[in-house]
């Protein structure tokens, strides 16, 4: 039995479907990230899980209990919002202890818990400060501590890092992961930053227009996206049709457009780093001419033409190619091909019962 | 939760019922004492008011032109003032801010009685101009406040962008500022018009019975006199101020309907 089970959840808003029959299973202790473009329904999904809005159909089960119609304050679920939303009129300590106070926990117990949380987020001595006296990173940590003080079964994070500047973002990301591990929490996080998603997630769910189109571990979703849209979320890619049989190419690879890819069964989405470049011919290599190269730090982007279509690869190290060079581009098939013959698990990640 | 709803609806109806009673009275022919409803309906009140030579038409005209002028002047001079306070830093700024807010706090009775003699001396008393000027002291705080918050909310970034695109001050006003202040104009005109249109004391004192506005006609009816006529007069009063607000809103076209925001 999965820890969180979402079944055929739908939500309409002003007659428009914003969440369209989504199903999702999350195991205890997992860190699941929902990614997708803005407006795809990620935050709505979180709010449905938190109980802030009611679904029009479908159900949510947490730890064996059906919570679909339970209101937010009665669920063992806490949500940390995008812009931290600390209560401005009370101190850090009162913010962290807010949930416990609402539950009617005794004053000294709250105090102890607040101290524990403060040392967890390394803000000891700040208890009497007010939110506007804290830096952005500190506020976000207090917001997290405020949620964790309640020891929720499920922690929901809505773009927890987006309001922080890039340097803080890395620290905070590691910090969230560490806490997730130490407290053995089940966490669902929403982001539109794919690097963040790949970094943090045990599993990633890609959402588009209110549906989950792919739900898999990071490597899987990165190298073997089910559609161009998902591939696009995580960076550059090439669309090829390569009829393979037992590791041998049956005929030459064809470059496809997004539209053609939709109807093609043997389409593969090839990441630029799955292509390695050689100067001497190799078996099954694509022969192409370099169009241009762009230096972006640790690597170079090599754009080359193959059958008059443009493809993209990376070159690493100090190897330099010039426009017009004729080169051999080899595809690492093991990267981009699924376990063949095996029937795909259904998208929700729930075992068939 | 149910209790909440009942409570709120009760408050709500208490706010609304007086209107219904007022409307009933205005269409009453006879309403015997002790009865819950009029025994006979009619248009006596309306006929009295709508008679061509009644004082009502004239006072309505005076009221509309007075409050219209007050609104126009108040808004026009408040726009630069609001911008100056919102976007500039200058010596004596807090003093100016206090002065602008003070008329909301200080009762008009002190100002009106204090200035009355000098108005008489300089020929402003008993005149349209005098009443207009004294109304402005009451309405300006409201309109300036609205434009301060409009300009504060908009910030200086639009103006700066306009400058970098080489727009001169008129072009910036016409194509940038105008759109920013539209919601403020809607709220402002409604508020200022209302304050001026319902002003009794200052009009009475400074106008000295020569500038007769609608409130002056209505005033004696409140504690004595014909209830039917008083009700019709009151309705004319409310309708004309509603009418003005609708016209103002239509003219200015606040498409985003942000005007409510600026009531504070």
């Amino acid at each position: 039995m999965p820890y969180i089970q979402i079944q055929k959840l739908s939500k309409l808003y002003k007659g428009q479907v914003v969440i369209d029959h989504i199903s999702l299973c999350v195991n205890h202790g997992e860190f699941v990230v929902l990614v997708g473009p803005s407006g795809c329904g990620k935050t709505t999904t979180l709010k449905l899980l938190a109980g802030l809005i009611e679904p029009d159909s479908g159900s949510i089960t947490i730890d064996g209990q059906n919570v679909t119609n339970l209101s937010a304050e009665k669920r063992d679920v806490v949500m940390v919002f995008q812009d931290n939303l600390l209560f401005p009129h009370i101190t850090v300590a009162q913010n962290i202890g807010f949930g416990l106070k609402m539950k009617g926990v005794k004053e000294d117990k709250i105090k102890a818990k607040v101290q524990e949380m403060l040392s967890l987020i390394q803000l000891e001595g700040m208890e009497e400060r007010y939110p506007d006296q804290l830096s952005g990173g500190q506020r976000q940590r207090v917001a997290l501590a405020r949620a964790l003080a309640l020891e929720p079964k499920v922690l929901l994070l809505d773009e927890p890092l987006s309001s922080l500047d890039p340097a803080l973002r890395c620290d905070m990301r590691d910090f969230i992961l560490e806490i997730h591990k130490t407290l053995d929490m089940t966490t669902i996080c929403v982001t539109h930053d794919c690097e963040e998603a790949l970094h943090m997630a045990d599993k990633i769910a890609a959402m588009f227009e209110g549906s989950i189109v792919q739900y898999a571990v990071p490597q899987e979703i990165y190298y073997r996206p089910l559609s161009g849209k998902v591939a696009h979320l995580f960076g550059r890619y090439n669309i090829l049709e390569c009829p393979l049989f037992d590791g041998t190419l049956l005929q030459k690879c064809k470059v496809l457009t997004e539209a053609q890819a939709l109807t093609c069964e043997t389409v593969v989405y090839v990441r630029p780093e799955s292509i390695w470049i050689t100067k001497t011919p190799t078996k099954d290599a694509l022969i192409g001419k370099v169009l241009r190269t762009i230096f972006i730090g640790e690597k170079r982007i090599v754009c080359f033409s193959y059958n008059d279509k443009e493809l993209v690869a990376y070159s690493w190290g100090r190897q330099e190619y010039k426009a017009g060079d004729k080169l051999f581009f080899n595809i690492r098939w093991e990267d981009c091909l699924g376990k063949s013959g095996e029937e795909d698990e259904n998208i929700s990640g729930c075992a068939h019962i | 939760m149910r209790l909440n709803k009942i409570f709120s609806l009760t408050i709500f109806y208490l706010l609304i019922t007086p209107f219904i009673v007022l409307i009933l009275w205005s269409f009453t022919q006879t309403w015997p004492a002790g009865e819950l409803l009029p025994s006979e309906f009619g248009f006596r009140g309306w006929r009295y008011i709508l008679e061509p030579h009644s004082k009502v038409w004239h006072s309505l005209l005076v009221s509309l032109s007075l409050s219209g002028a007050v609104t126009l002047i108040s808004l026009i001079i408040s726009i630069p003032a609001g911008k100056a306070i919102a976007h500039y830093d200058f010596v004596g700024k807090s003093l100016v801010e206090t002065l602008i807010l003070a008329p909301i706090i200080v009762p008009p009775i002190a100002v009106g009685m204090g200035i009355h003699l000098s108005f008489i001396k300089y020929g402003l008393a008993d005149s349209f101009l005098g009443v207009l000027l004294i109304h402005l002291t009451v309405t300006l705080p409201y309109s300036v406040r609205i434009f301060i918050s409009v300009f504060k909310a908009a910030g200086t970034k639009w103006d700066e962008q306009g400058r970098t695109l080489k727009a001169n001050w008129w072009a910036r006003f016409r194509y940038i500022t105008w759109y920013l202040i539209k919601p403020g104009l809607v709220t402002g005109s409604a508020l200022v018009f209302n304050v001026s249109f319902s002003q009794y004391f200052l009009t009475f004192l400074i106008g000295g019975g020569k500038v007769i506005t609608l409130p002056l006609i209505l005033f004696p009816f409140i504690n004595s006199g014909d209830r039917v006529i008083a009700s019709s007069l009151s309705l004319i009063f409310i309708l004309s101020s509603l009418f003005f607000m609708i016209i103002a809103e239509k003219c200015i076209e606040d498409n985003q309907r942000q005007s409510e925001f600026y009531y504070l």
Partner: protein
Amino acid sequence: MRSLILKKSTWLPYLMLSPVLFILGAFFIGGILLAFLQSLGYFPIIGLEKFTLIYYKEVITSPDFMAALGHSFYICVVSTLISTVIGVYLAYYIAGLSHKNKGIDFLYKIPIAVPHIVAALMIVFMVSQGGIIARLVMKMGFISEPNQFPSLIYSKNAIGIILIYIWKEVPFITLMVYTVMANIQKNLGEVALTLGASKRQVFYHVILPLSTPAIMSASVIVFAYSFGAFEIPYLLGATYPRTLPVWAYLNYISPDLTNRPIAMVISMIITVLAIIMVWLYTASLKKLVRYKL
């Protein structure tokens, strides 16, 4: 170089402010100053040119003064308190409606657009001895004669006046508080809910403390208005005690011109009291509310 906005500009802001400052300076400040001079007995038209505090002494030692002061405070405190409580409650209810109810949204604002004297007329129709409520009570058999209905108009208890103010000010307070509350409800209210607070707890621990500044600034405007307002108590008040503004006015129009300085003294007292109260309010607000929203 072109001048930048927000720099310490020398003359431009003053130029922009000049029309407003001229009108307020000449007529508002001028009016107050002249009232002050006249309250000190400087009144050249009837030959009084010496400054004296005698009129202040006369007013303050008069038995009428304490009565008028008390009566003014009574009307203004009671009506402000009740309208604030009801207005806040209504704002909370409207902010909590899940769907914006256009009808309620429009209708509750109507009294704001109604002038005070029309409001007075409506309340007279409701609560006077010949009013609808008296008729209703009589029909139901609780009283047999209209004059058995308690007298609320022209009476010492001033209930009619207070009701008029409440009817006018509740929507005003609701309007001023509603926007702020709706904002808090939308953001911090949701946070509090996910942290396990009940709706009642959200109201008392989050919404109410955070909308205090808005509530106080709305009620101080209402307070200052009803303290200095003249029309309603003049029309519907008891002959004794009178409110301070009415007392001032009656002195002003008295044919005996030597009463004029008395009127000015009273209006100066009203002004000073109003300023003191507003100042107290802002000072306490600064102490109470140390955060920015």
